[in-house]
């Protein structure tokens, strides 16, 4: 019987000094398991009799499907079934759309129906007795296509006369919304200068080490489908799948294996695979498995939002930015599968890190003949942060000021904290100036400016770039109501369960699904702290199972929420359990509860020094239950659901809402050298100063931030999903889609300054995504380096090839 959810808990103590287990760099024990090859990933899960699925993929960016002939495919020995979009259409409903009509009329199925809309789109699913035969057979599905005109650019897609992707919608607009906050028009009118430019962010992918996969089995006896998947938010995705397959969620058992090899947002819209595999397993009454190959993952395993901004900033003579007016167009790709959520998620960081209250944004999102977009680390905010960081440099250029000075001048001040932004986001504390100045010291900004002067004299191209970003975390689903007031979700929650087993070991579970973020260690530390006992007495159970795990509908690891949300839920659950443990101990020892404390896997009396190990308490609670206090419910299990108050919980008519709970921030600085002959770019120095709030485990936080930094470097200098004019993806495997590895990682000078979050219970902020800091600092640095050549950059991705062609234009 779940206990009451609301609970009064004392706020976590204010200083880290008060903690014994939280706040310490406990080594991450679970990292050793995958490093030794002992991890249990989805593809390691084997069920006898499993059939394997492979897709037939679209060779076109846009084409009509005239005919599908499966006869040759079915003739191949070992082939069990071929599924086409037609059959699915007859047996399932299209996925629910977030956007209201007309774009809500869009019909999205996991296999193409009537036409293909992007290169690599699944057209048929072939099931065979092994994975080799399945792939061979998939090539034998004979599809007759009629190529259609292609549109890959979002602005083109919104023009009159553009090819239309979805006839049921009538045009390519997914959603358009205008934010008119403060008075941007007035600010522009009164400004000393209007600084105007276009900024573009490019398309790249999440690229987790492990691709997506599904294994589904159907149990006829109970008419239930068991799904093993790597979905990041299994219980949120489930209704989407069930709605389409017309089955109640209770007929699905959702399981995640103990190890998931990274996600970075790219394991949310994989519900299409889950739908197909689940459908097939029920139809064929057999286990069916599918694991994306790398090319499939790159082609359609979630691309990030490609966006173009046309911006005007209102600027005062002294460099203060007083307003921003912009039109943004977002490229959704072929199907909105989590979109157009990205069309509001950026609004978590409306003014960026700067004190700007007058902001006007006209935002549209369009479908195009590219792979579907969805959350990718820094989802939708990276783009907005990048825009601000490019524009701040433009302001500096216009006013002939140092870009560091322009930023300092506009940063939100510590005394303004918590800061309410123009869209009612509440930035939860911090000292942006201190972080910024620390970064300037860290990268020796002044010294490099001097060196740069010298270098230029010698014909060397050295540049320094800065970027200051907000990395918001723990989202409020109500923001999606801006798009569709009928969207049936708001707020957020996560659940924690703490129990003590028969021998006295503390066991913890939550609904978040670890993908390599060290949940076991971090969450173990929280339970350790409450019970004042070493981590060796705590077991955190990884993996997820909807029938035995605790879960909330929003459960999952996404939006930098795990430490903030699950950490708090576990903290509450542990405190509740401790209360029961103390009550039992008081009864057993004949002492007052107020004289007892939990310590080292026992309860000890501060008065008499008497000690009762947790194992003995467990025996009483689970077995020797007649010795329990009268009326006490046996067992040692506690459960807490944490539902944060965002203050501005729901959007108002001006689209204002506090979209997320915590707002960590990071300042990045990069020094680059560009080779004047080859235009290769080399990072000479990269510094990061961030404020993650209270760090439950500093090692884990550092790992997350290093990862986010590398991801940003990779995005700026390597990863790019490039399509040709026919909509063919030219970077469909690792030969051409370049991902930075450890070898590409420069030495990173990383520092943290810590201020507690004013809005999260434990004082922590979400940090997993990182806000894309390095992208802005690298692009700014390269442009700075190229200043003697007068080269202006536009996009968030740089290649030497492009720099060369810019330098040699005319």
């Amino acid at each position, binding site marked *: 019987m779940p206990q009451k959810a609301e609970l009064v808990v004392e706020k976590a103590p204010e200083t880290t000094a008060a903690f014994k287990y939280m706040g310490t760099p406990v080594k991450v024990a679970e990292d050793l398991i995958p490093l030794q090859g002992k991890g249990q990933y989805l593809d390691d899960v084997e069920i006898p009799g499993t059939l394997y699925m492979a897709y037939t993929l679209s*060779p076109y*960016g846009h084409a009509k499907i005239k005919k599908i002939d499966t006869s040759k495919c079915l003739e191949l020995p070992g082939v069990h079934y071929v599924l086409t979009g037609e059959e699915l259409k007859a047996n399932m409903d299209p996925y629910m759309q977030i956007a209201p009509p007309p774009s809500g009329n869009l019909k999205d199925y996991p296999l193409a129906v009537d036409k293909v809309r992007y290169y690599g789109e699944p057209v048929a699913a072939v099931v065979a007795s092994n994975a080799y035969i399945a792939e061979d057979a998939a090539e034998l599905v004979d599809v007759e*296509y009629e190529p259609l005109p292609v549109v890959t650019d979002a602005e083109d897609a919104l023009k009159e006369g553009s090819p239309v992707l979805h006839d049921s919608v009538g045009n390519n607009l997914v959603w358009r919304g205008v934010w008119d906050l403060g008075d941007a028009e007035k600010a522009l009118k009164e400004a000393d200068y209007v600084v105007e430019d276009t900024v573009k962010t490019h398309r790249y992918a999440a690229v987790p080490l492990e691709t997506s996969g599904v294994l589904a089995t159907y149990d006829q006896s109970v008419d239930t489908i068991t799904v093993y998947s790597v979905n990041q938010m299994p219980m949120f995705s489930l209704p989407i799948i069930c709605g389409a397959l017309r089955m109640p969620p209770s007929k699905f058992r959702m399981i995640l294996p103990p190890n998931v090899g990274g996600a970075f947002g790219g394991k949310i819209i994989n519900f299409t695979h889950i739908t197909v595999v689940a459908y097939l397993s029920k139809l064929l009454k057999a286990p069916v498995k599918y694991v994306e190959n790398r090319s499939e993952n790159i082609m359609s395993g979630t691309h990030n939002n490609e966006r173009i901004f046309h911006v005007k900033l209102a600027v005062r003579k002294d460099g203060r930015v007083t307003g921003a007016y912009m039109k943004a167009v977002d490229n959704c790709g072929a199907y909105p599968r989590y979109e157009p959520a990205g069309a509001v998620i950026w609004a978590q960081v409306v003014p960026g890190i700067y004190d700007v209250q007058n902001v006007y944004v006209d935002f549209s999102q369009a479908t195009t003949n590219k792979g579907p977009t969805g959350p990718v680390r820094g989802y939708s905010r990276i783009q907005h942060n990048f825009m601000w960081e490019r524009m701040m440099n433009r302001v500096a250029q216009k006013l002939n000021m140092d870009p560091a000075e322009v930023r300092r001048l506009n940063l939100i001040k510590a005394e303004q904290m918590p800061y309410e932004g123009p869209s009612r986001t509440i930035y939860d504390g911090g000292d942006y100036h201190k972080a910024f100045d620390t970064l300037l010291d860290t990268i020796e900004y002044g010294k490099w400016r001097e060196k740069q002067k010298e270098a230029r004299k010698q014909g060397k191209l050295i540049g320094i770039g800065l970027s200051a970003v907000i990395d918001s975390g723990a989202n409020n689903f109500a923001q999606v109501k801006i798009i569709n007031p009928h969207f049936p979700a708001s707020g957020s929650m996560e659940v924690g369960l703490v129990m003590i087993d028969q021998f006295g070991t503390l066991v913890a579970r939550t609904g978040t699904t670890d993908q390599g973020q060290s949940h076991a260690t971090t969450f173990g530390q929280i339970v350790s702290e409450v019970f004042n006992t070493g981590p060796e007495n705590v077991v955190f159970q990884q993996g997820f199972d909807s029938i035995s795990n605790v879960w909330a509908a929003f459960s999952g690891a996404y939006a930098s929420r795990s430490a903030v949300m699950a950490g708090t839920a576990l903290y509450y659950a542990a405190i509740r359990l401790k209360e029961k443990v103390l009550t039992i101990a008081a009864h057993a020892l004949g002492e007052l509860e107020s004289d007892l404390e939990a310590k080292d896997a026992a309860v000890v009396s501060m008065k008499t020094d008497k000690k009762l190990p947790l194992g003995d308490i467990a025996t009483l609670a689970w077995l020797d239950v007649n010795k329990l206090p009268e009326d006490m419910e046996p067992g040692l299990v506690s459960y807490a659901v944490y539902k944060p108050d965002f203050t501005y919980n729901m959007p108002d008519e001006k689209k204002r809402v506090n979209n997320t709970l915590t707002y960590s921030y990071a300042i990045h600085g990069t020094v680059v050298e560009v080779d004047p002959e080859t235009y290769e770019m080399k990072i000479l120095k990269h510094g990061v100063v961030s404020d993650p709030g209270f760090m439950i485990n500093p090692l884990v936080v550092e790992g997350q931030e290093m990862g986010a930094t590398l991801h940003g470097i990779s995005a700026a200098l390597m990863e790019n999903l490039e399509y040709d004019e026919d909509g*063919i993806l030219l970077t469909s495997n690792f030969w051409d889609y370049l991902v930075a590895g450890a070898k590409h990682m420069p030495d990173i000078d990383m520092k943290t300054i810590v201020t507690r979050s004013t809005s999260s219970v434990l004082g922590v902020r979400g940090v997993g995504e990182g806000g894309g800091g390095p992208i802005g600092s690298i692009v700014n640095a390269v442009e700075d380096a190229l200043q003697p050549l007068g080269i202006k950059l536009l996009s968030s991705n740089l290649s030497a090839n492009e720099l060369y062609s810019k330098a040699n234009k005319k």
Partner: protein
Amino acid sequence: MKFEGSREVNTSAQAVWDFLTNPNNMAECLPDAKSHEVVDDKTIKAQLKVGVGFIKEVFDSTISYSEVTPDSKDMKIKIDAKAKANTATINIDVHVDGADSAAKLQWTVDAVMAGRLASIGQRYISKVSDKVIEQAFECMMSKLAP
């Protein structure tokens, strides 16, 4: 992908035109054809083994003539070619003119290559259809006027 080519032939434009519009002549000149069949006076079906070096795929191809205009000596040739995971749709505009023993054959090509080779073979693929078409015309013309 768009490209064009031309060839001068020391015979009359009419002779070039007559030779060209006979699908049997085209069929005999398809490079690396494993098999071919002239279906009617406007259609050839063929299995073409096309690629670079040893990297070749067998394309089931339909070659069809349309808008054959004897007056202006213009016609269109469309090639629909399909292999495992690869397709090509090639539209060729052909025009013949020129003086008696100095005919000129001109072609402009709009090729849409789709599928795996188009994605992975971006460095080389553009040259392939170019080469195949040039070879075919070259072969026909040297047969006509050796």
